[in-house]
């Protein structure tokens, strides 16, 4: 995992995984379809990415498919020209 992938993975583990949930989060672990992040919580994940990567993610791009794994999230950030991680 590169630095940004680790940052996203660690944030997901810290914020969304319940303490008794022993699942390992890998690059391709399904986050939305796996029930770890729901569509409402996607908004706080989006905010986190925007802040850490100094970019704006248009609502149309913030889809369950784009947020379904660490890999797809980082691909989205790269595609949108995110700088991250910053700050």
């Amino acid at each position: 995992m590169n630095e940004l992938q680790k940052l996203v993975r660690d944030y997901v583990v810290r914020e969304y995984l319940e303490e008794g949930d022993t699942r390992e989060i890998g690059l391709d672990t399904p986050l939305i379809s796996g029930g770890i992040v729901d569509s409402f919580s996607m908004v706080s994940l989006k905010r986190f990415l925007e802040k850490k990567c100094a970019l704006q993610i248009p609502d149309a791009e913030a889809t369950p498919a784009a947020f379904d794994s660490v890999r797809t999230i980082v691909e989205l950030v790269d595609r949108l020209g995110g700088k991250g991680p910053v700050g």
Partner: protein
Amino acid sequence: MSPVLLEKDQFVHGIWAESARDLEWQPGRPLNIGWQCSDRLCRLGLGEKPALLWEDHQGNARRYTFDDLRVLTNTMAAYLRDEAGLHPGERICLFLDRVPELYFGFLAILKMGGIVQPLFSAFGDDSLWTRLDNAGTAAVITQRKHLGKVRRARERLPELRTVVVVDAGDLALGPGELALDLERRERVERFAGLATDPETPSVLHYTSGTTGQPKGAQHVHLSVLGQALTARRVLDLGPDDVYWCNADPGWVTGTSYGIIGPWANGVTQAVLDAGFQSDRWYAFLEKYRVTVWYSAPTAIRLLMRDGTELARRYDLSALRHLASVGEPLNPEAVIWSREAFGRPFLDTYWQTETGAIVIANLPGMEVKPGSMGKPFPGVTAAVLDARTGEPVTAPGRAGLLALRPDFPSLIRSYWRNPDAFAAKFRNGWYLTGDRASIDADGYFWFVGRDDDVINTGGHLVGPFEIESAMLEHPAVAESAAVAKPDAVNMEVVKAFVVLKPGHAPNDDLELEIMNTLRRRLSPLAMPQEIAFVPSLPKTRSGKIMRRVLRAQEWGEPVGDLSTMMEE
């Protein structure tokens, strides 16, 4: 005394009598939903028919027949009564993802005479504690991933004696914690379920209002008459159907139509324990040849975003009936579903308190896209003038949507709060809290809420709960939570926050407050937007005027401001 008015004669003649006959029940006889949904069907020869086709996000699948359902609910009921030491009338909470034990546990609790309290497993610490405390819950059935939240709540809940963990494995359990491995347990062939009176409390679902903490809507076993009949007449369920209701049983749709309605009719249900993904959902519909699908506008609008083309890649030819609930179904979604699935989603209207569908677009009825439909036969609905409390007769004039309280699935009270339930009545009508109009053809049209409750993705969220939790954050001096329009969820929570001296607005603080609310309450209650403001609009008596903030968000007139305090 409950303001619900039911006459014995209603179950001898008329539409509810038809449902009573179908369920082989007569007035004066016991009625138990747990028995109705399992043992009775086996007695009718349906024992080998699939009852539950279950699959999780990893593709693990299990298949249970109605005989499995009967025996496994017997096994769990015997365990709860004899080993967990639980008694009839005690509140037993199901705090589980959509695992098979949730479905078996629901019927098992009813069989042994307990009151089921299903709670959404994404609830955070405060939301969980508030509801368990109010209900005086005696036991929680959960899984290890949610055990941390239950343990923290239990520290402040003296009435909560027992926690049952359905997947404990090698996990070390503490005092009052029990492991239940249902699949490996010796099956109980015969269980003498409690012969409950039809008015015995069955299910306690919590629902939010404008003021105070959420209230426990107290359903009774007689509700099955409404749920079973509407499942057949509105959802069009028949013996050959494979049915999917994608609502979580933490909410009333997931129990009334995700457990009781279909199973009381002996219908095979498919359940997917996974989050939303369009392609995953289509694959599930295709794999199980789902024929009837009960969904929600939010999910439909998310599917719409991914386009018709994606839907057409899957063989969805088995689908023959689609229905929707939770919030008004916009005309675009009705038209899109015709393109994508060859048939429209038909809107249905009801709420936690009504227990079953009360207004609907029935199969075969002409659909007016965007309309709620017409009252279900046996339900009398009207729109009342807010000033007089009398029914409005002019077509198209908006007023308070009200129901005559004479149908079996209406709740009997709010738990330990009969005054709050009595306050929902006016001139012999039950007030839904929604506003609507009726057109010249008798179709009902949703206008909006009559209070400050936020309907987000079909779930009601109370502003008081959000504002109370917000105050726990060290930087927040005061706040107001209102509904903001949203293209997918109809409404989302927006919070206006006044910070304490020494705190400045910034992105980090916004994210921190959002995540705090999500953890304490739930993802639904997390504000999707926070506006930091120097002050909030208030009345001269100091009450926050949420309607002013809401009107700003919706671009509507703010109305009378004569009582507003000047800056």
